[in-house]
């Protein structure tokens, strides 16, 4: 216990966030946000349509613009917003959806957040931490049996899962190679969801080659934040968390991700605050959020939080996703398996760029479930005693890929960008100039080809083949406006080589 207390005392470095504050104030002004929301009530349709058009410039909207959108009441105007959100996504990212899986490595936590199953006072939670051998086994399942190429690794905040443990687990994941039907399965991008860290610790993460570093503020409202994160815990420090991305960028991690846990406070406030966060990062570093996340609060074991008070309805959820898409038009948007399949189907077309599948969030759950040889042995119940919350859509990746293909989306396993320098200011420029989506299209075809050959069921493969054919035709039709003949011949060559067993060819 004494060691734990000593560790806690050394985590927060005030000087690392106070220097970014303005006269002791952070960049989230609760009163100003509510004023903006109140001052932009009952907007005229023409004004709303003007803002929708503005979002197509792919620059951040202003807080007044976003507040205006949040105040729309007319269902027809909302339909226009939903439609625009979908168009914007296609403009920036084309029709690809990137998939990933979360890997929970440890559920030890020193915090006591009222809404979380991992909170230290929850004595019914079975505390587990993956050994490096466990991490290897989990990765073998994810990369070798399911076919993921991209993970987000998740850790509780605790000395047993400190930055050195994180670095070791990430190295272990990157080292795993598994023989598949026609090639090799491996994880090519590891993103991290972890507690706020010091610049020094972030540099350790940077050096192991993390993809995106994500920290969610949970709620941006100062008062609610202090109520749900008890005094005396690490997480009680609002600013230490709020300035996590500043420190990450300072440490050289140039793909950063923000998010809020919707359901802790009024959803309109959180949307506004996320925009302010993006504005702050752009103004200080010239780099906005690589992705934004908007998980809805789910029931957790022994939760002490009233989940009904600020519960976000499905209708409002759709609105918040669309307004975020228009407000931060270039950003990646992640919809997770917290949401049931029905909601995912409805939300995906309004701006989503990434989603997870085959998701298990219990510690060690992938090897337990997917390790079974027979499908019939894989049926299992979620164990709330080993996971943070209940997930809503536990479908297999094959089912999700199949459904996406039916909806006209190509599943992408692309991890090319961060392995050839399309990061930071570079990717921001590419996103805002609509060029990134052109890379996405090419890499989606190639990585989808790999996955179909290595992991797809016969039915999904058949559907996927048709989709690839259609995508290749689309690429050809973009000569010479976007692509050169050389691009297309290279794509065709890579596609053939992948069919013959080569792997990891990308643009």
């Amino acid at each position, binding site marked *: 216990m004494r060691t734990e207390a000593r560790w806690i005392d050394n985590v927060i470095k005030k000087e690392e966030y106070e220097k970014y504050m303005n006269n002791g104030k952070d960049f989230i002004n609760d009163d100003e946000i509510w004023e903006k929301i109140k001052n932009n009530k009952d907007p005229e349709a023409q004004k709303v349509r003007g803002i929708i058009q503005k979002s197509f410039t792919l620059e951040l909207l202003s807080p007044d613009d976003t507040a205006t959108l949040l105040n729309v009441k007319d269902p027809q105007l909302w339909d226009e917003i939903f439609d625009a959100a979908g168009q914007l996504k296609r403009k920036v990212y084309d029709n690809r959806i990137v998939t990933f899986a979360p890997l929970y490595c440890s559920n030890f936590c020193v915090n006591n957040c009222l809404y979380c199953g991992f909170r230290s006072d929850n004595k019914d939670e079975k505390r587990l931490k993956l050994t490096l051998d466990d991490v290897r086994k989990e990765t073998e399942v994810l990369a070798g049996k399911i076919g993921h190429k991209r993970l987000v690794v998740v850790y509780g905040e605790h000395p047993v899962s400190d930055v050195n443990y994180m670095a070791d687990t990430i190295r272990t994941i990157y080292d795993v190679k598994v023989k598949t039907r026609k090639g090799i399965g491996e994880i090519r991008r590891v993103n991290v969801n972890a507690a706020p860290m010091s610049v020094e610790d972030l540099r350790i993460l940077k050096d192991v080659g993390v993809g995106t570093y994500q920290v969610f503020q949970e709620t941006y409202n100062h008062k609610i934040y202090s109520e749900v994160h008890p005094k005396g815990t690490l997480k009680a420090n609002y600013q230490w968390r709020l300035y996590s991305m500043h420190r990450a960028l300072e440490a050289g991690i140039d793909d950063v991700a923000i998010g809020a846990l919707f359901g802790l406070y009024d959803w309109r406030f959180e949307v506004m605050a996320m925009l302010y966060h993006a504005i702050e990062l752009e103004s200080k570093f010239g780099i906005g959020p690589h992705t934004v996340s908007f998980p809805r609060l789910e029931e957790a074991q022994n939760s002490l939080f009233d989940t009904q008070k600020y519960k976000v309805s499905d209708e409002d959820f759709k609105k918040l996703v669309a307004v975020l898409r228009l407000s931060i038009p270039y950003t990646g948007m992640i919809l997770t398996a917290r949401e049931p399949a029905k909601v995912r189907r409805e939300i995906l077309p309004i701006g989503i760029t990434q989603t997870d599948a085959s998701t298990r969030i219990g510690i060690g759950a992938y090897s337990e479930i997917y390790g079974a040889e027979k499908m019939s042995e894989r049926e299992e119940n979620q164990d709330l005693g080993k996971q943070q919350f209940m997930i809503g859509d536990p479908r297999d990746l094959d089912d999700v890929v199949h459904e996406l293909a039916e909806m006209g989306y190509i599943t992408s396993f692309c991890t090319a960008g961060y392995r050839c320098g399309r990061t930071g200011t570079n990717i921001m420029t590419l996103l805002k100039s609509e060029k990134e989506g052109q890379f996405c299209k090419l890499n989606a075809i190639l990585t989808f080809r790999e996955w179909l050959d290595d992991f797809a069921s016969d039915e999904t493969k058949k559907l996927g083949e048709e989709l690839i054919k259609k995508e290749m035709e689309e690429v050809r039709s973009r000569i010479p406006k976007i692509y050169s003949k050389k691009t297309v011949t290279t794509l065709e060559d890579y596609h053939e080589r992948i069919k013959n067993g080569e792997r990891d060819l*990308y643009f």
Partner: protein
Amino acid sequence: MEKEIFTSEFEKIAKVHDVRLWIAEKLGRRWSYVTGGGNEKFLPARLIGQIGNYGVFIEGENLDDKEIFANVHEILSRFFDIKED
């Protein structure tokens, strides 16, 4: 300041050779962008050389890798004491 000069110089080289040219820092599997110039060609990026932990990438049909790398090396050596491997 140096970064702005590099960007401007890289733009010039990129234009002459009709490539997209950039420099990135290697971190494990990650290559983090530093600066670069030229327009995207939508072709696979080629790592044409490394200087310490930094890699020089090009994207384009031009195959004058050695010449382009030599140009980049010369620019960087104006500002840094580059040790040869």
